[in-house]
């Protein structure tokens, strides 16, 4: 068998390049808190309204004792419910998404909030929203004829504004 010296060197370099990429990715995955939705938690999509967590009254943003916020949203053709939510910037936010019908996906442009929403499973994503403003939440997985009409609205406000809003007794979802 004949392997040229140059090929041996190049194979070594290629291995080095791939190894470097793997190291960077493992580093970011293990030490930089990358939270791809991987909680493997099942739920009966046909009985969401009867579940405690995703019954209508429990949807939307909820302030936790430790200052973090949990947001529960239901994806269904064609929207994410509740349709309008307001969230504080620079706060640990846990999104919990479920589908009441088919597969959906959702992302908030210019942020790393992205997940598939598979019926039968709860998709949980943790993130921080750094910039205030109006964001769309867009369905990014083909879910039927109305796929392009599936979106909801997110408004990110400063932490203090969000606290004032809640103290005045307003609903967190306008």
């Amino acid at each position: 068998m004949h392997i040229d010296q140059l090929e041996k060197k190049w194979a070594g370099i290629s291995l080095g390049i791939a190894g470097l990429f793997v190291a960077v990715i493992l580093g970011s995955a293990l030490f930089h808190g990358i939270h791809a939705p991987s909680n493997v938690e099942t739920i009966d999509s046909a009985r969401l309204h009867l579940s405690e967590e995703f019954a209508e009254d429990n949807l939307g943003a909820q302030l936790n004792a430790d200052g973090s916020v949990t947001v529960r949203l239901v994806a269904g053709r064609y929207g994410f419910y509740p349709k309008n939510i307001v969230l504080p910037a620079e706060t640990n936010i846990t999104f919990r998404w479920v589908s009441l019908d088919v597969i959906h996906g959702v992302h908030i442009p210019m942020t790393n909030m992205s997940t598939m929403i598979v019926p039968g499973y709860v998709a949980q994503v943790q993130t921080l929203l750094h910039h205030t403003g109006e964001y769309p939440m867009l369905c990014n997985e083909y879910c039927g004829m109305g796929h392009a009409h599936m979106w909801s609205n997110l408004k990110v406000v400063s932490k203090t504004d969000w606290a004032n809003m809640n103290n005045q007794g307003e609903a967190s979802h306008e």
Partner: protein
Amino acid sequence: MNNSAEKKLALTHLWVAFGAFGLAAVMGLYQVIERSGFFGFLESRAVYYASVSTHGVLMGFVLTTFFIMGFGYYTATSSLKMPVWNLSFAWVGFGVSLSGVVMAALPLLGGAASVLFTFYPPMQAHPLFYIGATLLVVGSWFWCVSMIVMYTQWKNANPGIAVPLAMFATTANAILWLWTSVGVAVEVLFQLIPWSLGWIDSIDPGLARTLFAWTLHPIVYFWLIPTYTAFYCLVPKQAGGFLFSDEMARAAFILLVVFSLPIGFHHLYMDPEQGHGWKILHAVGTFVVTLPTFITGFTVIASLEIAGRLNGGKGLFGWIAALPWTNPMVLAIILGLLMLIFGGFGGLVNASYAMNAMVHNTAWVSGHFHLIFGGTTVIMYFGVAYYLWPILSGKPLFCKAMAVKQLWTWFIGMIIMTTPWHILGLLGQPRRIDSVNYNNLLTLSWEPYEVTMMFGGAILLYSSALLLINLYKTQMGTEAYQGEIEYAEPIHAPDDLPEYLNSFKLWNIVIAVFMLIAFGYPILQFFLMETFGSGRWGV
């Protein structure tokens, strides 16, 4: 050797492949215009999604499978210098695949299977769609059996001698495809067909996605291996040189087969039904599978450099200018490698566990896929077609200049279409939307890119027409052409090849172990935890 029967078999497969391609190319232009929203009278989401589903099936499943089978049969008979084993068996396989395509086309064109080529249960298509898709795959298994039988027969008749590289690669692909298709076959046979026929009431979309991910990554290598086969076995000769290393080519094919299989979860990074650990394991494997492509890039470019220098090219880059740029196959590889550089960069972003979150399911992904598949992979199918058509039909190529123009327009069209597509993804546009309806100013930033993409689509359709006209006129020509396929010679003949570079026994065991590790528990978990199935949903 008189192999006119084999030539007819191969040519028939290739005509089905490129016929499907032509139809799908027309749909492609319609889609890019429809989704821009600038032509209101064209707007119809029902037609759009029927078209997208058909375009995907025709390009992804029909063009590829028939091209691979046709090219494979001719590679087998010409490289081994033996007739195709059991021709009627091969024709039956062709018939099964073709009837599957027709069967799937009926609901697809009628809008009763607008679930895209990735199926997406619990949206349900007409049962004929699933049954047709299954038959297409079953027919391709006939081809796999043919290739493995011929490889084995030749090896038994020539003990201790290296199997010709082209056949080694083709057999690798047959084995890869058998392993690859298991995932989707299980999904279709045990979930989709019984569920669409009403025999079972619910299926678990999480399990379905996991099984589809088994198939989803290696299938792209099934499409790519014929392209790489041409890179290694045909291009160096056409460029006027020699293959730099036969052994490294074999190593690359083995790495492709072994490592493309256990890594499908990079399609599920954003899915809730699989855990972190499994995703990271598959992410690591995803980077291992870049190795054979790095090796291929080196060996193939080294082979081209040898050719360029033999043609009189001097200096560090002078050999590039000395390549025969007007030889369609050489031009195809040059343009294909350029697109591989861009597309490979995008692929690294997708494969990266964290960065993927920024582009997942956005228009970026569709742009990436078109660039790397429609670009790098399919442009080489064109190069092979221009080379094989005269040999298979016995008529000279109708017009070489037209072929060169076709390849250039394909490259330019692909760049003009996919660059804005990538940018749209970074600007947050979801993939697979038929129109823009969002109540947000962000969408205004999308418009210039949507306009640009239309020009790309138009150039690509023009290019497709040039290809089909050229092939058709060749076929209809009156002059005769005598020629056989010429394989590239390696600089060093592979004499004392170790058995692990000439056989797949060891590698099949390695694959079995890898698949058990990578997919064993992730599939088993659905039977260990309480899951809730989904019923049937329309589109």
